[in-house]
Protein backbone atom coordinates (compact mmCIF):
# COMPACT_ATOMS: atom_id res chain seq x y z
CA UNK A 1 0.00 0.00 0.00
CA UNK A 2 1.30 3.40 -0.92
CA UNK A 3 -0.11 6.87 -1.33
CA UNK A 4 -0.07 6.53 -5.11
CA UNK A 5 -2.38 3.52 -5.30
CA UNK A 6 -4.85 5.08 -2.89
CA UNK A 7 -4.91 8.24 -4.95
CA UNK A 8 -5.32 6.15 -8.09
CA UNK A 9 -8.40 4.53 -6.55
CA UNK A 10 -9.71 7.96 -5.64
CA UNK A 11 -9.08 9.18 -9.20
CA UNK A 12 -10.89 6.17 -10.64
CA UNK A 13 -13.95 6.75 -8.45
CA UNK A 14 -13.88 10.46 -9.28
CA UNK A 15 -13.67 9.78 -13.03
CA UNK A 16 -16.56 7.32 -12.97
CA UNK A 17 -18.49 10.01 -11.16
CA UNK A 18 -17.57 12.55 -13.83
CA UNK A 19 -18.85 10.21 -16.51
CA UNK A 20 -22.11 9.71 -14.66
CA UNK A 21 -22.67 13.39 -13.95
CA UNK A 22 -22.08 14.30 -17.60
CA UNK A 23 -23.89 11.46 -19.35
CA UNK A 24 -27.04 10.84 -17.34
CA UNK A 25 -30.27 12.49 -18.36
CA UNK A 26 -32.17 11.85 -15.18
CA UNK A 27 -31.46 14.33 -12.40
CA UNK A 28 -31.41 11.57 -9.81
CA UNK A 29 -28.85 9.51 -11.75
CA UNK A 30 -26.79 12.63 -12.30
CA UNK A 31 -26.65 13.12 -8.55
CA UNK A 32 -25.28 9.62 -8.16
CA UNK A 33 -22.37 10.72 -10.32
CA UNK A 34 -21.78 13.72 -8.06
CA UNK A 35 -21.85 11.47 -5.00
CA UNK A 36 -19.26 9.16 -6.56
CA UNK A 37 -16.96 12.13 -7.16
CA UNK A 38 -17.24 13.02 -3.47
CA UNK A 39 -16.57 9.37 -2.59
CA UNK A 40 -13.24 9.68 -4.41
CA UNK A 41 -12.49 12.85 -2.46
CA UNK A 42 -13.07 11.16 0.91
CA UNK A 43 -10.73 8.30 -0.01
CA UNK A 44 -8.07 10.76 -1.18
CA UNK A 45 -8.36 12.85 2.00
CA UNK A 46 -8.03 9.75 4.18
CA UNK A 47 -4.95 8.68 2.21
CA UNK A 48 -3.37 12.12 2.63
CA UNK A 49 -4.09 11.94 6.35
CA UNK A 50 -2.31 8.60 6.65
CA UNK A 51 0.64 9.09 4.33
CA UNK A 52 1.48 12.80 4.37
CA UNK A 53 -0.03 14.84 7.17
CA UNK A 54 1.80 13.62 10.26
CA UNK A 55 -1.40 12.75 12.05
CA UNK A 56 -2.81 16.24 11.66
CA UNK A 57 -6.59 16.21 11.94
CA UNK A 58 -7.20 18.67 9.07
CA UNK A 59 -7.55 15.86 6.53
CA UNK A 60 -10.14 14.23 8.73
CA UNK A 61 -12.04 17.51 8.73
CA UNK A 62 -12.00 17.41 4.92
CA UNK A 63 -13.73 14.02 5.07
CA UNK A 64 -16.36 15.40 7.43
CA UNK A 65 -16.93 18.34 5.07
CA UNK A 66 -17.25 15.97 2.09
CA UNK A 67 -19.80 13.81 3.90
CA UNK A 68 -21.85 16.86 4.83
CA UNK A 69 -21.56 18.10 1.23
CA UNK A 70 -23.03 14.80 0.04
CA UNK A 71 -25.97 15.11 2.40
CA UNK A 72 -26.62 18.71 1.40
CA UNK A 73 -26.25 17.95 -2.29
CA UNK A 74 -28.71 15.12 -2.08
CA UNK A 75 -31.29 17.02 -0.05
CA UNK A 76 -31.20 20.10 -2.28
CA UNK A 77 -31.10 17.94 -5.41
CA UNK A 78 -34.26 16.07 -4.45
CA UNK A 79 -35.98 19.27 -3.41
CA UNK A 80 -35.19 20.86 -6.79
CA UNK A 81 -36.32 17.72 -8.59
CA UNK A 82 -39.55 17.75 -6.62
CA UNK A 83 -40.09 21.43 -7.41
CA UNK A 84 -39.44 20.96 -11.14
CA UNK A 85 -41.59 17.85 -11.21
CA UNK A 86 -44.44 19.65 -9.47
CA UNK A 87 -44.16 22.60 -11.84
CA UNK A 88 -43.98 20.72 -15.13
CA UNK A 89 -43.79 16.92 -14.74
CA UNK A 90 -40.15 16.82 -15.75
CA UNK A 91 -37.34 14.83 -14.22
CA UNK A 92 -34.71 15.07 -16.91
CA UNK A 93 -32.10 17.74 -17.40
CA UNK A 94 -32.67 18.08 -21.15
CA UNK A 95 -36.31 18.97 -20.66
CA UNK A 96 -35.39 21.69 -18.19
CA UNK A 97 -32.97 23.27 -20.67
CA UNK A 98 -35.18 26.34 -21.12
CA UNK A 99 -34.40 27.30 -17.52
CA UNK A 100 -31.16 28.83 -18.75
CA UNK A 101 -32.99 31.48 -20.68
Amino acid at each position, binding site marked *: *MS*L*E*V*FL*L*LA*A*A*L*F*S*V*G*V*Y*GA*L*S*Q*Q*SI*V*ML*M*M*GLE*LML*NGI*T*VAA*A*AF*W*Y*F*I*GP*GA*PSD*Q*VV*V*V*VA*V*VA*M*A*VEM*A*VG*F*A*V*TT*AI*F*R*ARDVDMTDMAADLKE
Partner: protein
Amino acid sequence: MGAVAFWVLAVAAVACAVTVFVVDSMARATFALLASFLFGAGEIILLGLDYLGVVIVVMMIMEMVIMAVFMVMYMMNPAGLMPMSMVHNQRGSLLTAGTVFASLAAGIFLVPWPARGPHRPADPTFDLGKSLMGPHMLTMMLLGVTLFATMVVTVVLASQQGRYDRLGDDLKGKAR
Protein backbone atom coordinates in the same frame (compact mmCIF):
# COMPACT_ATOMS: atom_id res chain seq x y z
CA MET B 1 -2.84 -8.75 4.41
CA GLY B 2 -3.33 -4.99 4.19
CA ALA B 3 -2.35 -4.91 0.53
CA VAL B 4 -4.71 -7.76 -0.35
CA ALA B 5 -7.54 -6.06 1.50
CA PHE B 6 -6.76 -2.81 -0.28
CA TRP B 7 -6.89 -4.32 -3.75
CA VAL B 8 -10.02 -6.37 -3.09
CA LEU B 9 -11.85 -3.34 -1.71
CA ALA B 10 -10.52 -1.04 -4.44
CA VAL B 11 -11.56 -3.29 -7.32
CA ALA B 12 -14.95 -3.87 -5.71
CA ALA B 13 -15.50 -0.14 -5.12
CA VAL B 14 -14.71 0.81 -8.72
CA ALA B 15 -16.66 -2.15 -10.14
CA CYS B 16 -19.74 -1.16 -8.12
CA ALA B 17 -19.29 2.45 -9.20
CA VAL B 18 -19.34 1.41 -12.86
CA THR B 19 -22.31 -0.89 -12.20
CA VAL B 20 -24.35 2.15 -11.10
CA PHE B 21 -24.43 3.43 -14.69
CA VAL B 22 -24.74 0.03 -16.35
CA VAL B 23 -27.76 -1.61 -14.73
CA ASP B 24 -31.28 -0.83 -15.85
CA SER B 25 -32.97 -1.20 -12.49
CA MET B 26 -32.92 1.98 -10.45
CA ALA B 27 -33.11 0.03 -7.21
CA ARG B 28 -30.03 -1.94 -8.21
CA ALA B 29 -28.21 1.23 -9.29
CA THR B 30 -28.85 2.76 -5.86
CA PHE B 31 -27.67 -0.32 -4.04
CA ALA B 32 -24.59 -0.57 -6.28
CA LEU B 33 -23.74 3.00 -5.31
CA LEU B 34 -24.26 2.06 -1.67
CA ALA B 35 -21.90 -0.91 -2.10
CA SER B 36 -19.31 1.36 -3.69
CA PHE B 37 -19.51 3.67 -0.68
CA LEU B 38 -19.25 0.76 1.75
CA PHE B 39 -16.10 -0.51 0.02
CA GLY B 40 -14.72 3.03 0.06
CA ALA B 41 -15.47 3.20 3.78
CA GLY B 42 -13.59 -0.09 4.11
CA GLU B 43 -10.52 1.57 2.61
CA ILE B 44 -10.83 4.44 5.06
CA ILE B 45 -11.06 2.01 7.99
CA LEU B 46 -8.03 0.22 6.55
CA LEU B 47 -6.13 3.50 6.90
CA GLY B 48 -6.99 3.61 10.59
CA LEU B 49 -9.83 6.14 10.49
CA ASP B 50 -12.38 3.86 12.18
CA TYR B 51 -14.76 6.61 13.20
CA LEU B 52 -15.00 8.30 9.82
CA GLY B 53 -15.32 4.95 8.06
CA VAL B 54 -18.23 3.84 10.23
CA VAL B 55 -19.84 7.27 10.02
CA ILE B 56 -19.71 7.03 6.22
CA VAL B 57 -21.40 3.62 6.48
CA VAL B 58 -24.15 5.10 8.66
CA MET B 59 -24.66 8.17 6.50
CA MET B 60 -24.59 6.36 3.19
CA ILE B 61 -27.06 3.64 4.14
CA MET B 62 -29.53 6.31 5.23
CA GLU B 63 -28.88 8.45 2.17
CA MET B 64 -29.14 5.61 -0.30
CA VAL B 65 -32.38 4.28 1.18
CA ILE B 66 -33.90 7.73 0.83
CA MET B 67 -32.38 8.01 -2.64
CA ALA B 68 -34.00 4.73 -3.63
CA VAL B 69 -37.37 6.14 -2.60
CA PHE B 70 -36.88 9.17 -4.86
CA MET B 71 -35.48 7.08 -7.69
CA VAL B 72 -38.56 4.92 -7.73
CA MET B 73 -40.74 7.99 -7.42
CA TYR B 74 -39.32 9.93 -10.36
CA MET B 75 -37.96 7.41 -12.84
CA MET B 76 -40.22 6.20 -15.60
CA ASN B 77 -38.82 2.70 -15.42
CA PRO B 78 -37.63 2.10 -11.89
CA ALA B 79 -37.40 -1.67 -11.98
CA GLY B 80 -35.65 -1.78 -15.35
CA LEU B 81 -38.25 -4.18 -16.70
CA MET B 82 -38.29 -2.25 -19.98
CA PRO B 83 -34.67 -1.37 -20.68
CA MET B 84 -34.16 2.01 -22.28
CA SER B 85 -31.34 4.42 -22.74
CA MET B 86 -31.32 7.40 -20.42
CA VAL B 87 -28.02 8.95 -21.43
CA HIS B 88 -26.95 11.90 -23.52
CA ASN B 89 -23.60 12.86 -24.96
CA GLN B 90 -22.14 9.52 -24.04
CA ARG B 91 -19.01 9.75 -26.16
CA GLY B 92 -18.16 13.20 -24.87
CA SER B 93 -18.73 12.08 -21.30
CA LEU B 94 -16.55 9.01 -21.69
CA LEU B 95 -13.85 11.12 -23.28
CA THR B 96 -14.00 13.73 -20.52
CA ALA B 97 -13.97 11.09 -17.79
CA GLY B 98 -11.01 9.34 -19.46
CA THR B 99 -9.11 12.61 -19.75
CA VAL B 100 -9.81 13.46 -16.12
CA PHE B 101 -8.57 10.05 -15.01
CA ALA B 102 -5.47 10.20 -17.21
CA SER B 103 -4.49 13.66 -16.03
CA LEU B 104 -5.14 12.79 -12.39
CA ALA B 105 -3.12 9.60 -12.71
CA ALA B 106 -0.29 11.50 -14.41
CA GLY B 107 -0.36 14.06 -11.62
CA ILE B 108 -0.34 11.32 -8.98
CA PHE B 109 2.78 9.73 -10.35
CA LEU B 110 4.60 12.94 -11.36
CA VAL B 111 4.19 14.95 -8.17
CA PRO B 112 7.02 14.26 -5.74
CA TRP B 113 4.95 13.56 -2.63
CA PRO B 114 6.71 14.37 0.62
CA ALA B 115 7.76 11.05 2.11
CA ARG B 116 6.84 11.42 5.74
CA GLY B 117 5.90 7.80 5.99
CA PRO B 118 2.80 6.32 7.58
CA HIS B 119 1.87 7.80 10.89
CA ARG B 120 -0.92 6.90 13.22
CA PRO B 121 -1.85 8.97 16.24
CA ALA B 122 -3.09 6.98 19.22
CA ASP B 123 -6.72 8.06 18.89
CA PRO B 124 -7.65 9.74 15.59
CA THR B 125 -11.30 10.03 16.67
CA PHE B 126 -10.26 12.11 19.66
CA ASP B 127 -8.03 14.25 17.42
CA LEU B 128 -10.91 14.91 15.08
CA GLY B 129 -13.27 15.88 17.85
CA LYS B 130 -10.70 18.13 19.48
CA SER B 131 -9.91 19.93 16.25
CA LEU B 132 -13.57 20.34 15.31
CA MET B 133 -14.25 21.85 18.72
CA GLY B 134 -10.99 23.85 18.66
CA PRO B 135 -9.06 25.18 15.68
CA HIS B 136 -11.73 24.03 13.22
CA MET B 137 -14.65 25.41 15.17
CA LEU B 138 -15.46 27.78 12.31
CA THR B 139 -15.75 24.83 9.91
CA MET B 140 -18.05 23.04 12.31
CA MET B 141 -20.26 26.10 12.77
CA LEU B 142 -20.44 26.65 9.03
CA LEU B 143 -21.43 23.02 8.51
CA GLY B 144 -24.13 23.38 11.12
CA VAL B 145 -25.54 26.54 9.59
CA THR B 146 -25.34 25.00 6.11
CA LEU B 147 -27.28 21.97 7.22
CA PHE B 148 -29.91 24.13 8.86
CA ALA B 149 -30.20 26.30 5.75
CA THR B 150 -30.51 23.12 3.68
CA MET B 151 -33.42 21.93 5.77
CA VAL B 152 -35.24 25.23 5.33
CA VAL B 153 -34.47 25.43 1.62
CA THR B 154 -35.54 21.87 0.87
CA VAL B 155 -38.81 22.26 2.70
CA VAL B 156 -39.51 25.52 0.88
CA LEU B 157 -38.62 24.04 -2.49
CA ALA B 158 -40.43 20.79 -2.07
CA SER B 159 -43.62 22.06 -0.44
CA GLN B 160 -46.53 23.32 -2.46
CA GLN B 161 -45.78 26.62 -4.15
CA GLY B 162 -46.27 30.01 -2.47
CA ARG B 163 -49.31 31.18 -0.55
CA TYR B 164 -50.76 32.98 -3.57
CA ASP B 165 -50.82 29.67 -5.43
CA ARG B 166 -52.47 27.90 -2.55
CA LEU B 167 -54.91 30.55 -1.38
CA GLY B 168 -55.60 32.61 -4.48
CA ASP B 169 -54.80 36.26 -5.16
CA ASP B 170 -56.78 37.59 -2.23
CA LEU B 171 -55.29 34.99 0.13
CA LYS B 172 -58.80 34.08 1.16
CA GLY B 173 -59.18 30.87 -0.82
CA LYS B 174 -59.31 27.46 0.75
CA ALA B 175 -56.00 25.73 1.24
CA ARG B 176 -55.69 22.87 -1.16
